[in-house]
């Protein structure tokens, strides 16, 4: 089963673009994809522009990735968060915890 994501690398940064509906059925795939790149000690940008729906299990995957990155000192951010995903992040009050980039370019362009 392929997950609802597409991953590419920009330099040492893995850009995982989630798409469609993220729920308990596919969030385990999202989780392992995020953790896989983190275990390679890559910086991680999760592109949420194509997310039409994300539930608590999807959010839990993001939180786990965020915690792992912070532990190992790699960078983790969310980019181009869709209104649907932003609503849920705000409900969880995680919009102030995660680093959010309005545009994907802002996230992957090294500063």
């Amino acid at each position: 089963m392929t997950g609802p994501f597409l991953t590419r690398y920009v330099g040492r940064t893995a850009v995982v673009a989630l798409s469609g509906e993220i729920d308990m059925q596919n969030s385990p795939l999202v989780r392992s994809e995020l953790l896989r790149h983190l275990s390679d000690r890559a910086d991680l940008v999760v592109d949420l522009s194509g997310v039409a729906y994300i539930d608590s299990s999807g959010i839990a995957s993001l939180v786990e990735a965020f915690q792992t990155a912070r532990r190992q000192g790699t960078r983790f951010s969310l980019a181009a968060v869709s209104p649907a995903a932003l609503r849920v992040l705000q409900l969880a009050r995680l919009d102030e915890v995660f680093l959010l980039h309005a545009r994907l370019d802002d996230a992957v362009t090294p500063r």
Partner: protein
Amino acid sequence: MPSSSPRRRPASYHRQLDLIAEMSHAFASSHDLRETLVRGLRQVADFIEAEAAGFFLVDEITGELVCHACVGPVDITGLRLAPGQGIVGRVVAQNVATLVADARADPHFGALVDLRTGFVTRSILCAPLSVQGHCLGAIELINGAFRAGDRQLLRAIGASVALAVVNARLAKAMVEQERLARELELAAEIQRAMLPAHLPGDFPVQGINHPAREVSGDFFDILQRADGRVAFAIGDVAGKGIDAALLMAKTCSLFRFLAKTQDRPAALLSAINAELCETAGSRGTFVTMVAGLFDPVSGAVLLANAGHEPPLLHWDGLFTSYPAGAPPLGIDPGLVTPAMPETRIALGGGCLYLFTDGLTEAFGNGHRLGSGGVQRMISAAAGLPADRRLAAIVDRLAPTRDDLTALLVEDRRGPPLLRLELDAAPEALSEIRRRVAEAVLKGGGTPGVAADVVLAVGEAVQNVICHGYGGPGPLALEIRRDGGGPLTVHLTDCAPRLDLASLPERCSAELQPGGLGLHFMRSVMDQVTFLPAPVGCGNLLTMTKALP
């Protein structure tokens, strides 16, 4: 017949007949038997020229002879003689008139009265009060120049007086019967007056009372409250007649007064209990009663049951019974308190039936109907409109010895925006979300509201799969919006009953399993409540969201 009539010698046959006729007339027309007796005795004593006279009746319970009236120098009214005692006793026992010229020579003569009073009894003429061979008592004349003809005369008078006594007793019994009948009629009147006025046929709460021949204390009441909810009650007062009717009237009045403002049926029943115990507690009467509150918008009932027949929920062909949570009212103030259990029932399109034991105790095909029989009758009538359904059930049981009283609370909301019954599994989530979004938009919600409801339902279903069943399991989802009210979502599962205490509170433990999902549900919906499912096992989750 003047009492100063000259001594009747030769005995005037006509005068004797006059005396008998006059006495009979006096007895028959008088309402005061004792006054008539004394007057009659005096006439007889004067006519036969006796010094004293007594009128004795057999006490129907003890068999004693009791003096009910007398004339003469000594008052022996109230004197009681054992059966067969004295010459009077012998007359009654043998039902034969007797003339004793020398009382003291008669072995039956009892000298007790003479000894006590100083009166000297010399001769006795005594005749039974005899009707159709049955002796009711005797008339006794004391001290006179009695002759054989006098015995015949007194016997005739005795027979006539006996008839009058029988008539008087019959009349008294009739008056008593009439009084009872009036009392029952009054009780029925009170009962009818306390029942609610006729409600429109489409009202969601309907009641019926079919009074028995004898009045009992069944009652019901239905009250439309200002807040849109409907308060209802059904009850049964132990006992019959005016006492039961008055107790019922009191209970009804208390309910009507309290139900307008009291939101807690347990507190309401407890208040009625306290009041009844204060005034009626000592008489051994009590009241079984269910009080409830129905919200037609949510289709939910909150009720408390004090010793009454368990209400039955008829839902999707199944029955659920809700037994009493406390003993009846009016026994002891401590038995029914505001802490008594309340039952919350989501009707979910079903119908709640409440009834008195007149229904369960009724007989069908020679067998006591019982709860099962009532269920069969409800099922058989299920196709009828609510008001005719109750009539159909009650009419089939009437006539019966007891009152038949029944009440129903029906969820009259229109068809839901969405009703899904499915096996909840992760693969089904996507389809559920699509259908929920459709339903919310159809119900007038904005896309933003639809997204919120989709999230809440998605989290709820996920919780059932993960924490309820620990895998896939059957689930019923219903979304409705009635009368421009809020959107309501009902989710029913068959998982083990949720331990409500274990649910995380808002804002805490958000990242624990289920905690974040629950937080989402509570954040996007106005109200989230978990209840035991209306039927059998499982849980019912109700979520509401107001639409602009």
